[in-house]
């Protein structure tokens, strides 16, 4: 029983981090219908950024996630303006291919700058834990998940309660109508893409503390993200949160009760299972009813 509770807690902590990592991806898909395969490369980039600054200065890597957030916002903005928007205008589907090219180029550049060795940020608490009775809660996972959940709530409020969020949804639904109420659609799209990228800032920081990574890690992470959003229903933020919890718990159960090796297959097994059983995703119907939205 204790082992099960322990497993669920660890799974949900990881799930919280997966949810943040997937939120930007699902937002961009929901609004622009772009499968942004560079999303995980941005997470790895943010991980390198936090690891690198931590290595140089010793500043807490999770706190650096707060700095990485605006940095990745800026990166997302530039990426949107220079590549995504142009390609998207020319051809919808091509944007996915372009984003894959960006991912490969980014991992190449990261290899040149930071090398191809495995990296991990190891702050003082990276292998310490909180013990509640016989349950062990690792500090790193706890802080990372706490930060991720706080940012997700912030994103939810931003999309639900602010004019930026309303404008994003308006553009997703009907560009002409959005223009007619005075929204600058192009600028709003760039903002939306940049917000999606900004979520990789803390996501990357969490990754740098909890996992080892190297430039090509983004291939593994895009697999996990695709699993999360396909599980939850593409474009739905609530769906991403649910899908992330399922994947986190699924992986942890597999790792603890079966074998760590098998845990890496969980995302793919889940993708196949959901595509067979419920292709629209767990919250897929809701996604259709409210379009792109939270």
């Amino acid at each position, binding site marked *: 029983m204790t082992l099960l509770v322990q497993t669920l807690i660890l799974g949900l902590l990881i799930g919280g981090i997966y949810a943040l990592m997937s939120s930007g991806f699902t937002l961009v898909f929901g609004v622009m219908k772009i499968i942004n395969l560079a999303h995980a490369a941005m997470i790895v980039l943010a991980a390198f950024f936090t690891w690198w600054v931590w290595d140089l200065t010793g500043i807490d890597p999770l706190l650096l996630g707060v700095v990485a957030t605006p940095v990745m916002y800026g990166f997302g903005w530039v990426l949107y303006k220079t590549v995504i928007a142009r390609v998207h205008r020319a051809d919808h589907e091509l944007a996915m291919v372009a984003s894959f090219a960006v991912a490969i180029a980014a991992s190449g550049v990261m290899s040149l700058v930071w090398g191809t060795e495995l990296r991990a940020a190891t702050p003082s608490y990276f292998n310490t834990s909180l013990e509640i009775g016989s349950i062990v809660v690792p500090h790193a996972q706890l802080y990372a998940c706490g930060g991720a959940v706080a940012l997700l709530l912030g994103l939810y409020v931003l999309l639900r309660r602010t*004019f930026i969020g*309303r*404008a994003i*949804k*308006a553009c997703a*639904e*009907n560009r*002409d*109508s959005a*223009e*007619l*109420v*005075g*929204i*600058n659609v192009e600028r709003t799209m760039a903002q939306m893409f940049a917000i999606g990228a900004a979520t990789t800032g803390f996501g990357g920081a969490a990754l740098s503390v909890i996992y080892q990574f190297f430039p090509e890690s983004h291939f593994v992470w895009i697999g996990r993200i695709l699993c999360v959003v396909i599980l939850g229903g593409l474009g739905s933020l609530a769906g991403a949160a649910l899908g992330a919890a399922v994947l986190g718990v699924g992986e942890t159960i597999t790792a603890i009760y079966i074998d760590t090796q098998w845990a890496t297959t969980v995302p793919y097994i889940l993708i196949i299972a959901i595509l067979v059983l419920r292709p629209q995703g767990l919250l897929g119907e809701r996604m259709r*009813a*409210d*379009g*792109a*939205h939270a």
Partner: protein
Amino acid sequence: MIEFRNVCAGYGGGDVLQGLDLRVEDKSITCIVGPNGAGKSTVLRTLSGLLSPRVGEILLDGRALHTLSAAQVLAAGVAQVPQQGGLFGGLSIRDNMLLGGYLVRRQRRELNKRIDELAEVFPIVAERALDKAADLSGGQRRIVEFARALVTEPSVILLDEPTLGLDPKTCATVFETTQQVNALGTTVLMVEQNVRFGLQLADHGVVMERGQVLISQPADVLLGRSDMASMFFGAAPTEPAVDVPGGPA
């Protein structure tokens, strides 16, 4: 006054508007009629800034509108209710109204006050505030679209087929609402497939064909013309006229 001077505009595959000249008097209700594809919606789109004219000028009281973005045209006082599906279905009525005031979003207090005022005229705005726009009926949506277009207190309102898909009773509501808005001093430029409905409502009628203005006349004169029937009712089938309050029988 709104003035189109020799406007040519299109969507890339040749001009839809072909040297269009048009005048819309202040505080009038002007109704454009014409067969499908004549370019009626395109007139409204070029005016509201969704489409830039290739040639020609569009002036509002002498000020050039054709070089402005849609947001700038709205700020200049011209608001458009688009043809069909103009509300954001996944958003609440309240959020739709707030977006109507997107340009004045920083004056939140005034914006809320303005929405409250409009809710008195259009009660549905308050009654269904938290419902998703997609959950309203077609007629209810039309009313909210009207209300949303009025948030910025425009001096000109553009309506593209306001009665499309509505039952006769709701058409009558649209008729009254348009008169109401006009009585408040707003110029109305509308496009209407239902020729009799549109011309009964309007002061001035404009007939368009192939991207040009064919006839521009007081609406009652146009309505009384004997060649109207052959011009329209033969060429493009229209919905049966509805009994509208205040209109000639």
